[in-house]
Structures are given as C-alpha cells and as structure tokens.
C-alpha cells in the first residue's frame, strides 16, 4: 500500500497553510514543528501587526493555528525535528526526534516550510554598533515594543523625540554576501513608522533608504500613507556610521538627493534587517539533499513557472525557505505546494494500482 500521508516541516504561516490545505482536500498531513507552539516567526518574534494591512498579528496567527490544531486530518507534532530521511517520492522514510525519543515514519511526499531568520547586525559592514549601543535596535526589537505599546529608548526608558530606520541592513550588500533584496523590509519599516507616529505623536520619524521597494498596493497602503498622512520623512541615502554623542546617537550618512553629508542626532535607530535562510532550512536542505542557491536558500528548480518544486522529486518547499517572501507569497506558495504534494501521492498510488 503506497503511503498517502504528507509530511509538512515547519509550523509558521506557510507550513500551517499547507497542512490546512492538505487536510481540507481530505489527505492526512503530519505537521512537525521544533518549537513547543505553532505560529512560526510572527509568533516567536512577537509581531504586533502584520504587513501590509496592520492586522493584529496575534489574532491572525491564532486563527491559522486553530484551523490546523482542530483539523481532523492534521497530526501536529510539537517539539519535534526531522533528523534523517530516506526513500523516494511515494515512499519516504523519515526519522523524527522529540527530546531523546526517535520515531520512524513513512510518508508519500514532503513539504518544507522552515522559513528564514533575521540577519544578525553584528555582521553588518557599516558601523552601526548594534552590540555597542543599547538604543540601536532591529525591526524585530521595535515590533516587540509596539506589541507592548511601550516605545521607549532602551537605554533609559525615556520617550524618544527622533527615531530613524536604516534600510537594507544585511541585504543588497555584496560585501556581506547577500546581494538580494529582502523584499519586505521597506514595507515593514513604513508600517512600524506609522505605528510609532500613532503611539508617540510628537516623535519625528525618518527612513533612510537606497530605493523604496513598495510594489503593487504597498505603495498607497504603506509608503504614501506613511509619507502623506503620518509625515514620515523619507531620505534617499543610508547611514554609514552610528556613534554616541552625549546621550543620543549620531547618525552619519549622505542625503544623496540634496547631495550633502548629514549628521543627525537620534534617540533610537532601527536597523531594517533582512532575511537569511533559517538554521532549520539549512538543516533540511542537508538532510534531504536539496539543491540550495548561493545564499543557502532552498532552490525552487522550476521557478519562476513553478515556485515550489525542489531538486528532489516528491519534496516541495514553500515560504521564506526558498528566498525572501512576504505573507502573501508564503501563503500562496503553500497552497501550491499542497497541490503538488497531493499530485505526487496520487501519481504513485495510481502507478501501484495499475
């Protein structure tokens, strides 16, 4: 009897959506998540509101989680990792590990949705001093403060008067080795800028950028909205250096539109850190022997016409494990991956039957 089950690895937005789709169509999904709870990075990093529509992240994610947890066709395995894989499309043998307990499992297809991790600003080649200065934070740190409705200077808990974002930290950078655009940071920075302006109306907010990448509806919904309604200042030219001056940070850069170097004092600097493949993504690529691109993301070998097929038949990938992705990308690709995985199973079942 060919195996009809599908293994989904990763309980973030893409994995949740893939598992739900599989279940809805009537197949069985086994959803493996290494953390003790579902929800992925939006949950783990404590996102306040989702990009682009500022929807409450906690509510949105718990709706997705519930849809899976209550699904009769989805078998959720928390605190579990995949440690070995063998076999081929239609009949994979997977070894799961939960604590010290190992278990072998047979599945017909696999969907990897192990996502990304945020760039560690310690590796930045500009002098941003993330590990030197308490008031230099990341988009993720900012999100945590917004969620707590407490946006203050980490160094002394005071309300900030001037705040700036620096774009493309860890992205579009040949010296760091990440030449790609991380796609979402322009939108997230604009979203957070709006939220800061709402939470601390007296605070001036600047965004230093190289190019604002606001495709489709993100342009009116985030960029124009931030600039026109919330008076966020967009300056073309990123910063090269952050230093301490008195109890504030001094940000040095060039305003390339006005063609002059600037040195502006700030209370908080937010680094718009980009995406890199997560440890889980690197690990799954190794275990399944998947082709990776030069940035170690899992390669979608049929892209752009097929965004989920990997170099190994029967193994599919969706979400940010294949490259920087926003929620829309991740959710759309998850549905496609579910469809392809089911097709694989049916193909092998039919072969066996005939």
């Amino acid at each position, binding site marked *: 009897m060919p195996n009809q089950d599908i293994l989904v690895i990763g309980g973030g937005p893409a994995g949740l959506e893939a598992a739900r789709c599989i279940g809805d169509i009537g197949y069985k999904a086994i959803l493996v998540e290494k953390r003790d709870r579902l929800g992925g990075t939006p949950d783990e990093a404590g996102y306040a509101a989702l990009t682009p529509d500022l929807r409450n992240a906690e509510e949105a994610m718990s709706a997705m989680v519930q849809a899976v947890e209550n699904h009769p066709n989805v078998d959720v395995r928390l605190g579990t990792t995949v440690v070995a894989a063998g076999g081929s499309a239609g009949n994979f043998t997977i070894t799961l590990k939960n604590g010290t307990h190992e278990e072998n499992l047979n599945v017909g297809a696999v969907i990897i949705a192990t996502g990304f991790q945020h760039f560690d600003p*310690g*590796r930045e*080649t500009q*002098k941003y*001093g993330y590990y*030197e200065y*308490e008031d230099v934070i990341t988009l993720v740190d900012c999100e945590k403060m917004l969620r707590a409705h*407490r946006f203050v200077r980490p160094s002394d808990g005071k309300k900030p008067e001037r705040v700036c974002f620096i774009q493309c930290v860890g992205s579009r950078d040949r010296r760091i080795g990440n030449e790609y655009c991380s796609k979402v940071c322009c939108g997230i920075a604009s979203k957070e800028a709006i939220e800061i302006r709402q939470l601390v109306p007296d605070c001036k907010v600047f965004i230093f950028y190289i190019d604002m990448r606001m495709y489709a509806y993100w342009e009116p919904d985030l960029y124009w909205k931030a600039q026109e309604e919330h008076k966020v200042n967009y300056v073309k030219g990123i910063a090269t250096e952050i230093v*301490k001056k008195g109890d504030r940070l001094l940000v040095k850069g060039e305003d390339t539109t006005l063609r002059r170097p600037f040195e502006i004092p700030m209370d908080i600097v937010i680094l718009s850190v980009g995406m890199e493949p997560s440890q889980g993504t690197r690990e799954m690529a190794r275990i399944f022997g998947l082709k990776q691109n030069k940035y170690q993301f899992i390669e979608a070998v049929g892209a752009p016409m097929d965004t989920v097929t990997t170099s190994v038949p029967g193994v599919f990938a969706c979400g940010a494990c294949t490259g920087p992705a926003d929620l829309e990308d991740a959710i759309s690709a998850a549905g496609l991956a579910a469809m392809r995985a089911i097709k694989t199973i049916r193909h092998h079942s039919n072969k066996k039957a005939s």
Partner: protein
Amino acid sequence: MGQQVIPVEELIKSQKKPGFKYTPEEAPTEDYRDILFQLEKEGELEVLRVPEPYVEVTTKYGRKKKIPLEHTWHHKSCGQCGHIPGYSTSIFWLNRQFGFDYVDPSDQTSCTAWNYYASATSNAEAQAAVAVRNFAAAAETGRFPLIHCGTSFGHYKEVRHELLHHHQVRRKVREIMERLGKRLVFPEEIVHYSEWVYAIRDRIAERQVIDMSAIVASVHPACHYHKLVEEDAIYDPEIYGAQRTAIVTGTLKALGIQIGEYSSWYDCCGFGFRHILVSRDFSRSFAVQRKIEVMKEEADPDIVVTHDTGCVTTLDQSQFAGKAHGKKVGIPVMSDSQIAALAMGAHPYKVLQLHWHNTENRPFLEKLGIDPEEKWREFEDALEKLKRGEKHYLTWEDADA
C-alpha cells in the same frame, strides 16, 4: 496582579549582552590563504610561513591569524624613520627587552605606496615587484616580515589580491625577480607591528613599571589598517563587541589606561598622502576640526594613541597652527609602541625620542610621575658625549643606562 513584569526594553537589551562573534563559515570574503597555498602547489610562488613561536588572534570574519613573536624582519616605515624615529626605536626596544630575535635590515626599500597614493607615478606591476623584492629579502635572512607602517600593511594586502588574482601581474613580477636573482615569495600573513604589540599586551603588562590607570587615551585606528582590505584586521568580542577593530584599544586596556570615547573615531586623520606634503590646509583643518577638537570636547584625553605613521604625524603636527588660531587643541600624540615602551620604563627621549614630536607632552609625562626636566637632562648628557666625540652614536646600552 502581583506578577513582576519585565519592561520590554530590558528584554531587548538583555539579548545583546554577550557581544558578537563571527564564525569563519559566515565569512563573506574568500580566504586568500586557500589561493596562496594552491598557487604554491602549482609552483607559481613560494609561501613564507609564520615562524614559531606565534600567537593566534582572531580577525574580522572570525578567522585565525598567526602573529610571530620573534624571528621577525622589520619592514620599516618612511615617515616613522624620517620624522618620528622614536616610533620605530620603541618597537626595536620592546623586542630587545623580551630578548626576541629580530633583524633591522638595510636590504629594505619603502613599499613606495605613500608616493603611489599621492602621485600615481607607478603601476600595479611595479608596486607588486617592490613588495616581493622586500619579502624575498626577508626570506633570505630566514626571518618573517613585520610591517611597521599602516599604509605598507594596507597596500601589501592590495598587492596580495592583485598577485593572487591576476596572472599578468604574477608573470611580470616573476620576470623581474628572475632578473634580480630573487625568489617570488609571499608571506602567509601580512602582519602589522601593532598586531604584534597586541599579541604580547599581557606580557607587556606583566613587566609594566609605570602605573597608567589615571590616563585617559583617545584612540585613532588607522584607515589603512582596518578599512583597506578589512578582513586582516584584528577584532575581539571583548573590545566593542567586535564591532570595531580591537587593535590599540586592546593594548591600552591591558596597560590599565582608560579609553576616552569620541564620536569621530572612524574618521580619517586627514593625512591625504599628497595633501600632507603640498596641500596641508586640508590635512590641518581635518585633523584639528574633525579629530582633535572632537576628542577634546567629548573625552578631554591626556593623549591620543594611534598606530600609523601618517596618523601620528598629521594629528601631532597639525595642532601647532590650530593653537595659533585659538582652536581647542593641545593633546600629545604617540604610537602604541611608544606607550608600551614607556609603560615598561623606556626613556622618554633616548627611546621614545619625544623631542621629534610637536605638541606639548610634558604634562602627560608628569601625570605619570616622570620628571621630564630630569629626563631631558639625562638625554642632554648623552648628547654631550656625542658632541665631545667620546662616541659617535648613542647605543642600546646608553639608552638603558
């Protein structure tokens, strides 16, 4: 609810505490040593290995770098030897104090990069040939080159890239070396003297006789040390969380000196190569306004410590005109080698040769409990012997007498 709530900002701060550490696997640049040793295998060149004993330090991208302690061949600096000779004298003095084997060669030319950056009257092949000639000369003595000058250090790393990646440059250099009867040899590491000082900082501290804990020093890291081919520079998670080079600062901290922070630490000194010689208005303004005045306002240090020829010269000499214009200047400037030697009891004039420096440094010596008048008299006594013809030169024995 009685539950203790930790404010979100405390959580954010706490996750940054350990400082940052690079792992070599994440390094964005090639490890040039892979190519260097491959070319050696192919018979293209010969690699001069770091001799034992050496100390391993960590560079920007988490790789290890070997710093030789002795058997060094001292690649001297034009500006140090010409205009601030106590700089190199202190390096030699430290070697002698530790009983390290070293060579101070006459078979050495300038790297000629100062002129090259100033005037461009040279080219890639000539620059590479000058470098390899010096390295071959070092190899002939069985010693390893220790580079005194920040610009030579930076430029030789550029040359390394050109030699390793452009066979045309290699071919030309090979042709020249054949004509000179020399080997095409390149060192395993390009090592700057301040890395050597950093590597032995704890040994220096063990033999420290002058308490320096009352001293505040502002550090100027040399551009050609940490900006020009950045991956060879030393970084340490304990110094600025490895977000700035650890060199000089690490040495000063080991000597108990307090670091005076200032906001233009990353700025160049204003040396400018051609500028310091024939367009000094630029060098002077930059050194005074962007460096010295900022240090004075923000840290008010007792001393500026740096580790390159051009930086000591520009920061020190430019203060004279600044003073005439009522600028906030007046901070003595020395190299880390001079400070290290002073800490170990070196004579401020016979070894540090502070009379070649411009900005007033006697208050600094006094703060350390050294009587500059008395020391100067001792130096003058030595000069008298030379004047009287009792001896022609001051020797190392005289320096420590």
